[in-house]
């Protein structure tokens, strides 16, 4: 497939500095009062019809948060955030309870159309209830739990998932419908006291996804959530919790876009994954939030805490991320390798252009015996951006036979950007085997000229070379995301050379 051609056409359709997803949807919304207080927390909890224990949990987090200070160790630089100048909750006003896609506000559906998210199409093509025996295994199914601003407005495929016993719903619903599961697992991987942003999230999280896959079940489809920040000045605090019970498997895709804004928008999500014995969770992200304009104004601040707990023996958690957006990215999807013989993976492509700042990486915490982890990180810095890989690999005293392989490659485009690698490696027992490889290279004029002499334009040449550079990671993505990601990579690097 001549993906490069397609990419270039897409790039050409976009005017410089015109973020493709920079539009607003005009719908009424239901807002919490500005600022953060116990009242705000209560307002959110009330809006969600939450049980008392949940409100208590939030309030404890809020009180804890008041005692904490913002972390400053990351290699990012931004004006101080006034947490009292933000709205912490906003939801599209539902006209009535929604039972099918047709009942969704047409404005919202239109937004999804512009984003190229085939929610309606998926529903029509796949039908809600496919007839038994007619299922085409070649056609991969994707269930979409669409998050519009802070409330999930549509959930498809519920019926089929239900048949398999998989619970996939907005977390606000799960709190009401499956309190025993939520109470057992929420905060068990990222405790409310974990870090400044995670604690903030615990106090004010609005919605997110909840997934539970029962023992021995292989989730029959890829699960997918699309996040979108729409309300002016609204912090977005997603909370996602995925539990794979013994011997189960689930693959979850997350993709994000946000409209163009002058004010900076704060995003502080928390994602918790729990894998029991022999279970496997694959979590993929393509993130292309608004990175700010060509002068570095605006853009999303993305302070995310993502962590997976390989709680059971032989469990496996794999993170794959393609990060191209946001003005500031502060994100370290991590694995706690608690179970014996458990394994963790982190595959990452982080692209920064313009004035973007990325400080991202992973933590692999080896606690169990014979645990293994693998880190493949590809950082691409262009324009005036700064791109930092920060990673921790550690083996506990009891984690005998722990193994890690890390490869960090950085590619520089132009001479005004920076790439930094900050690996922390600690082995507390002598049987651990840790390998670390790192390279930094500059996209060479000779390579570009070679491609151009063969008929490619400058942008096509950069897209081709960069897609080659990140190939190892792209291959880890589910097919439908890999193609999207490839396009996104070229689009993000638009105007980075020359």
């Amino acid at each position, binding site marked *: 497939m001549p993906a490069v*051609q397609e990419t270039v056409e897409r790039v050409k359709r976009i005017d410089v500095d015109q973020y493709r997803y920079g539009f607003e949807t005009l719908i009424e919304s239901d807002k919490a009062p500005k600022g953060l207080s116990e009242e705000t927390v209560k307002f959110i909890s009330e809006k969600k019809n939450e049980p008392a224990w949940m409100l208590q949990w939030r309030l404890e987090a809020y009180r804890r948060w008041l005692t904490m200070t913002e972390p400053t160790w990351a290699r990012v630089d931004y004006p101080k955030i006034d947490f009292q100048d933000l709205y912490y909750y906003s939801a599209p006003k539902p006209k009535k309870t929604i039972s099918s896609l047709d009942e969704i506000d047409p404005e919202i559906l239109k937004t999804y159309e512009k984003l190229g998210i085939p929610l309606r199409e998926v529903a029509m093509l796949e039908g809600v209830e496919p007839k038994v025996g007619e299922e085409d295994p070649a056609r991969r199914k994707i269930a979409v739990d669409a998050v519009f601003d802070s409330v999930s407005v549509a959930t498809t495929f519920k019926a089929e998932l239900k048949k398999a016993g998989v619970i996939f719903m907005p977390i606000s619903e799960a709190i009401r419908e499956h309190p025993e599961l939520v109470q057992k697992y929420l905060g068990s991987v990222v405790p409310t006291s974990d870090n400044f942003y995670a604690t903030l999230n615990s106090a004010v999280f609005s919605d997110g996804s909840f997934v539970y896959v029962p023992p021995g079940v292989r989730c029959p489809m890829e699960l997918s959530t699309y996040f979108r920040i729409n309300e002016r000045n609204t912090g977005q605090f997603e909370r996602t919790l995925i539990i794979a019970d013994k011997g189960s498997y689930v693959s979850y895709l997350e993709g994000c876009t946000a409209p163009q804004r002058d004010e900076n928008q704060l995003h502080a999500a928390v994602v918790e994954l729990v894998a029991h014995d022999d279970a496997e969770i694959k979590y993929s992200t393509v993130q292309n939030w608004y990175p700010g304009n060509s002068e570095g104004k605006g853009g999303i601040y993305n302070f995310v805490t993502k962590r997976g707990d390989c709680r059971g023996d032989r469990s496996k958690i794999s993170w794959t991320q393609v990060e191209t957006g946001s003005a500031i990215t502060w994100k370290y999807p991590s694995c706690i390798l608690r179970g014996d013989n458990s394994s963790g993976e982190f595959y990452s492509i982080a692209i920064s252009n313009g004035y973007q700042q990325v400080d991202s990486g992973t933590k692999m915490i080896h606690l169990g015996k014979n645990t293994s982890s693998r880190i493949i990180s590809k950082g691409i810095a262009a324009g005036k951006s700064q791109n930092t890989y920060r990673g921790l690999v550690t083996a506990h005293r009891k984690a005998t036979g722990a193994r890690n392989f890390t490869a960090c490659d950085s590619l520089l485009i132009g001479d005004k950007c920076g790439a930094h690698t900050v690996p922390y490696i600690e082995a507390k027992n002598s049987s651990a085997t840790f390998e670390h490889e790192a390279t930094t290279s500059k996209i060479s004029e*000779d390579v570009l000229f070679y491609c151009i002499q063969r008929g490619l334009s400058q942008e096509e040449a950069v897209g081709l070379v960069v897609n080659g550079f990140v190939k190892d990671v792209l291959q880890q993505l589910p097919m439908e995301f890999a193609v999207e990601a490839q396009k996104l990579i070229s689009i993000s690097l638009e105007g980075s050379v020359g």
Partner: protein
Amino acid sequence: MALLEVKDLKVRVEEREILHGLTLTVNEGEVHAIMGPNGSGKSTLSHVIAGKPGYEVTDGQILFKGEDLLEMAPEERAAKGVFLAFQYPVEIPGVATMNFLRTALNAQRKARGEDEYSTPDFLKKVREVSKSLNIPQDMLKRGVNVGFSGGEKKRNEVLQMALFEPSLCILDEMDSGLDIDALRIAADGVNALRSPKRAMVVITHYQRLLNYIVPDVVHVMSKGRVVKSGGKELALELEASGYTQFEAA
């Protein structure tokens, strides 16, 4: 008919003039050899024709099929039929050779307003050409020139030349880094591409290559100018007596 006309070309690199008024005419169907010592400006000429950045043309002109070549972007020149076989072909990790060939070929066809090749047509064409050049299929699955031997890299250049069907082929020091066997294979590939509509400019230090690719015209370059032109026997003369006698004053 004249395919390439270089007229009184003056070129600078960072304030230093490398070509001091070079004139050269290459007609369709002809093979020209350009010989000369290191630093005589041979590679500069090839780079300027292909449009490599970093060179400043201060005077003169280059016409290609009667059009002003210097007005065209480098990728436009490629689409119009200018092909440069590199002395040191670059490696592009992670980009399969097959994918690269197809992307480039389709980019050129699109620029000319032609239809892009369909997958089966393209594969058929690549198979044909690679077979004639003794290029195994698995080499095409590897990253562009990654882990290729010197001979394989040059054969890959010839493969592209055969696929893209350019009307002007510039071969920059094609013999560098090749043993005799590899040189013969590459030269056979080039010879198979000789045609009445296609011209070639073969840049080399040594006469050796010209035993395999026999030129119609030989030019001797020295200090940024063509100082002597003649038939193929001029190359033999150079081999015997060296460049000193031709050195420009």
